[in-house]
């Protein structure tokens, strides 16, 4: 069984909220650049179904639109403790309550994942719409470059 996964989360019908899905599909095309023991998964909008996926892996990197204290369009890798730390103005992702609860449930019931990280992208717009905002669309290549750099560091 593969022990590591990268999971993209988001709703492509809510503009920039779909960035996690766009990035995971770019990664699926480039997966040959990574070791074979890593799965790349389109996690959709999450929900309880995700527990069956995430409880299989020791290490998971989630990719999602996250509203954190930084400029729109910035991307950063967060540790779980940063997400939980209320003093740091890192608020949760648009699916956070759900995802964090499902992750918590998975850890408590199945002791997995052992470690997880969030690669967050601060969105410009999350209204209804089936395309990224123009502003975020123009930053996708740079965000993807940053994502690859972070993944190589974490996954190697």
């Amino acid at each position, binding site marked *: 069984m593969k022990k590591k996964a990268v999971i993209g989360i988001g709703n492509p019908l809510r503009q920039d909220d779909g960035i996690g899905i766009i990035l995971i599909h770019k990664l699926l095309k480039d997966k040959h650049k990574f070791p074979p023991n890593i799965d790349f998964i389109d996690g*959709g909008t999450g929900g*309880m*179904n995700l*527990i*069956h996926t995430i409880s299989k892996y020791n290490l998971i990197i989630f990719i999602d639109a996250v509203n954190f204290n930084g400029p729109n369009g910035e991307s950063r890798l967060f540790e779980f403790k940063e997400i939980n730390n209320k003093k740091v103005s890192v608020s949760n992702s648009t699916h956070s309550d759900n995802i964090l*609860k499902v992750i*918590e*449930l998975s850890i*408590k*019931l199945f002791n997995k994942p052992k470690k997880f990280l969030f690669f967050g992208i601060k969105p410009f717009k999350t209204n209804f719409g089936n395309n990224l905002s123009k502003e975020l669309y123009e930053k996708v290549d740079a965000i993807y470059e940053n994502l690859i750099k972070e993944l190589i560091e974490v996954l190697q």
Partner: protein
Amino acid sequence: MSKDINIDVEHVTRVEGHGNIVLNVKKGKIEKLQWQISEAPRFFEAMVRGRKFNELRTITSRICGICSIGHSLASLKATEDALDIQITEQTGILRRLAINAENMQSHILHVGYLVAPDLFGIGSVFPLVGSKNQNALLKIVKLHRLSNEMSDLICGRTTHPIRLVVGGFSITPTEIELSKLKKNLEDGLKTTKEVAEVVKNVSGNFPDFERETEYIGLTSDEEYALYDGDVASTDTGRLSNYKDYRSYMNEFVVPFSTAKHAKHKRDSYMVGALARFNLNSKQLHPIAQDVADMFNLRPICYNPFMNNVAQLVEFVHNIEDSIKCIDRLIEYGINQKKPVNVSPKAGHGVGIVEVPRGILVHDYTYNNKGICTKANCIIPTNQNHANIQNDMEKFVPQIINKPDNEIELNLEMLVRAYDPCISCSTHYIDVKFV
């Protein structure tokens, strides 16, 4: 007791979609009691017009993220009916497996994750972690995983199937895969009986409430009807021609809901697991029948809260039925042939199946190029909204002397008993601009 009550639940939790409960009582007299649906209509029937016959299944699957297999099957049956396409026996058995998988997925999710907290007296499933009932939660998660894996195998995906196509299956599971699934189902059957014991121990927390109503669903001489059968009512029996479904399902609009209501002989009726049980309980497989007996569930049961027990009974039935389906497939030998060839032609077809929340109808008209010119979908939850409203109107006077928070919880539990899929049910409203 004459008191004032103002309850405004916006929105009811642990259901799919957004619905509100409004109750205003003044000096003991009910002034307003409404089960309101406030979501925007979806316009799927308009969306499929102009699309080719082989696209409709994919589009209509998206009506629901829970019943996507059921919508796919109703859609395929309607298209195959319109184009005179005969499916093979193997396809019919595989489709029965698909509908069993969806029923299992949906029922265990609803009973295990959404209803169980009410029975345990907690707000959600999460406090079960670390409690004396953690083991029950692990079993529920295991059964949910089994149901998802079964959907993956038969339909190619947990949600929004990709292998179900007009005339058959694009990919068929192998004998090895089916044998492995059978083993897991047999193991799941034992686990389900253990979960049923846990639910039985807290089933006294289901409110003791009854209201006589009509139940509508599919029925068949051959089996406990889910994929095939005749439309039937506990009041008036079978409908002779399935294309006359509108004579049983009369949709209408009410001012406080964006979802349509429906009625037949009475001013409302109920569809779903309890309706199917009330119509077809004699055809349940033996262990499912044992579980029904365990809860003293007998037809005709008029307690809507027992719909959740009927869901558990059906879960057991779906496992038993799936094991039989797999045995038949293996006995006959699995044919990896492609779906039957399809030639577009003009026609009108109706597809009716049972999905977790009740009877579902897709009705399509195609022109001679196989392009859809007209569509109608009747969604189960639409058919239940009027019955929920009528239940509330009888239930509130019985609980009016309870504290407000208990009245609120009881009304929420009543809504959850129906397992409403509200987003699906926000349907189509004729708007006339004056």
